[in-house]
């Protein structure tokens, strides 16, 4: 990696962090959960060119794009930004809010796509299915029933006629990789909240961060969070290689596994305050619980990864693991 690409990435991360710290506050998250689309934040993101990250015209690469997605996770940005970025990288040209869901049905009258993130807002929707490099682009999506995931993020059923586009790196795994990075960013934030609360909260005449029980809890949380960052980066680095799906499998599984533990521990540290709606913690922990299930939960990816290892044979297991990257 050259110094220049590192600088570009850091600039993206810093700019995004500042933008989200200013704009993506609790009020905005609450409004999003009431179904209000964060139009002004979207416009700001778009105006800053962040919806084009990863495209050649933007002078950034996929790793920059995923670094940005990680920041979105850190701030729980309630927008279909990861989906729009993928749509732009798969079929460039158009402008606007795009989204992606699971392709369940393609007939002569059109395609049905489920769990489309902010599907009611999307000008273009793509349906993705497991184990296929072909995706269906629905140009004039008709939104049907809307439900929400456990984080209160809207997930719509969408119908419409579409055409096929071929995607190079396994598209389902790319979606999984967006969740990996969202989770990695969000996990880091949840740890920060835990540390901050532990230092501020006083009991028995001192900050609870001075108690060994709390220190050890946060130490294990930090270890999981550090593992999640490294696992996420590894899968991003495998983009464009024949290891991409397997690295994503390992990554989605490993990062997903961290989520339940980290959410539970940091809630424990926050006590009853973190259980209130007024506290911001649940915006992050509920997303961890949601994202680990989206685009293949741990079991799905472990099954795929394990099958590959078993087919590869016991005596090649180490070779499978000991890659250079």
């Amino acid at each position, binding site marked *: 990696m050259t110094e220049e690409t590192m600088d570009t990435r850091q600039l993206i991360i810093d700019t995004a962090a500042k933008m989200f710290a200013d704009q993506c506050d609790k009020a905005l998250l609450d409004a999003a959960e009431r179904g209000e689309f964060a139009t002004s934040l979207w416009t700001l993101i778009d105006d800053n060119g962040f919806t084009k990250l990863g495209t050649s015209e933007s002078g950034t690469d996929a790793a920059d794009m995923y670094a940005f997605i990680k920041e979105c996770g850190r701030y729980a940005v309630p927008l279909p930004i990861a989906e729009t970025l993928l749509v732009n990288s798969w079929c460039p040209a158009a402008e606007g809010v795009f989204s992606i869901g699971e392709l369940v049905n393609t007939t002569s009258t059109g395609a049905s796509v489920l769990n489309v993130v902010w599907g009611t807002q999307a000008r273009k929707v793509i349906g993705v299915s497991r184990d296929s490099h072909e995706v269906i682009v629905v140009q004039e999506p008709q939104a049907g029933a809307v439900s929400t995931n456990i984080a209160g993020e809207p997930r719509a059923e969408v119908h419409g006629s579409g055409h096929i586009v071929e995607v190079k790196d396994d598209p389902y795994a790319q979606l999984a990789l967006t969740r990996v990075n969202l989770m990695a960013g969000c996990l880091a934030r949840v740890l920060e909240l835990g540390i901050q609360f532990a230092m501020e909260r006083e009991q028995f005449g001192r900050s609870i961060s*001075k108690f060994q029980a709390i220190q050890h809890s946060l130490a294990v949380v930090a270890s999981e969070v550090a593992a999640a960052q490294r696992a996420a980066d*590894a899968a991003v680095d495998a983009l464009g290689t024949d290891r991409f799906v397997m690295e994503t499998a390992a990554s989605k599984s490993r990062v997903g596994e961290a989520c339940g533990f980290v959410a539970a521990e940091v809630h424990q540290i926050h006590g009853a305050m973190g259980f209130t709606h007024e506290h911001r913690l649940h915006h992050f922990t509920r997303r961890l619980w949601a994202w680990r299930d989206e685009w293949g939960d741990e079991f799905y990816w472990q099954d795929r*990864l*394990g*099958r590959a290892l078993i087919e590869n044979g016991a005596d090649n297991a180490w070779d*499978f693991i*000991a890659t*250079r*990257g």
Partner: protein
Amino acid sequence: MSLLQFDRVSLDEATATLRQEVREFIEDNRRHLPRPNSDFATGHDPEFSAKLGAKRWIGLTWPSEFGGSERSFFERYVVTEEILAAGAPVCAHWIADRQSGPLLLRFGSQAQKEAYLPGITRGESFFSIGMSEPDTGSDLASVRTTAVREGDAYRINGTKIWTTDAHRNHYIICLVRTDAPSEDRHAGLSQIVVDLRQDGAQVRPIANMAGGEDFNEVVFDDVLVPLDRIVGEPGNGWQQVTSELGYERSGPERFLSSFRVFVELIRTLEDPTQTPHAHQNAAVGRIASHIMTMRRMSISVAGMLEQGKEVAQEAALVKELGNSFEKVLPEIARLAAPDRAPELFRRTFEETLLLSPSFTLRGGTREILRGVIARGLGLR
């Protein structure tokens, strides 16, 4: 790199060639691996160590002046992980290569380096660690073994315990009190080399619950050693042991101890006439996802060592993750193995399970590591 952000490090082409050489070496030396076991503390085979020494794979990063190969920490990492993953017997040279040698290189005198390091790199000279005592475990600064200067010698009295392979190795580097305890409990400690075969220390093996006799009690009853056995400045022992522990805590031995159980689990499932259940696949995949991640973190720390950085906190974090998972791995494998699993799986599983309580004790208990990480987080 911060405590939470381990650098993306990709191993280079040189390591790929070296990796291949190590694999060929292992193939040529299968007779040294009758019962492969990835736990670094088992399998003491001086002949195997001498063969590694002949390949110049001990002291890989050390200067050639002392028999080292002047290669990178990444190359050392690759040799280490390949040998461990294969389950080769590494225990004889392990401590000398991992920490006694680096300690002597960093703090030892020129004469000490010349005296000890070439033998280590040849795989002929083996070291033990003299830190724990009967009343000193995690609270290392409380050691009571004394080394009192008398003319041109130090007189050593006290007892070291849990000393792996003291009955097989040549030297022990002991943490001792050279000055009486004072208000600064880290002051007055020194490290001193004792020749286990010449100086008159009494070594008594202690059987462990896994049926091995690997660790020992080492008693020093008026043992006299020359003054030049002190490593570094007298009184600097605490700084030295804490830096030494960084080397001890981040390597692949901290997540590969139970690796052979994983290999044998896969072997029980690879019968082409039987399709494994999804839960069995998932068990294999789950274990792999952890090992792949920890391995990359360990390589990130090798990158820090290569840059000459302090790694104490990162190493503690890798060890915490690694040791915890080394214990979970057999638990996952146990429930994923088929009924009436082959003997090889059962034996590998049982041997590892019996060793597993030690994984989160040796080299710094889980509790101590979590304290180190908490300090890194600014909590203490």
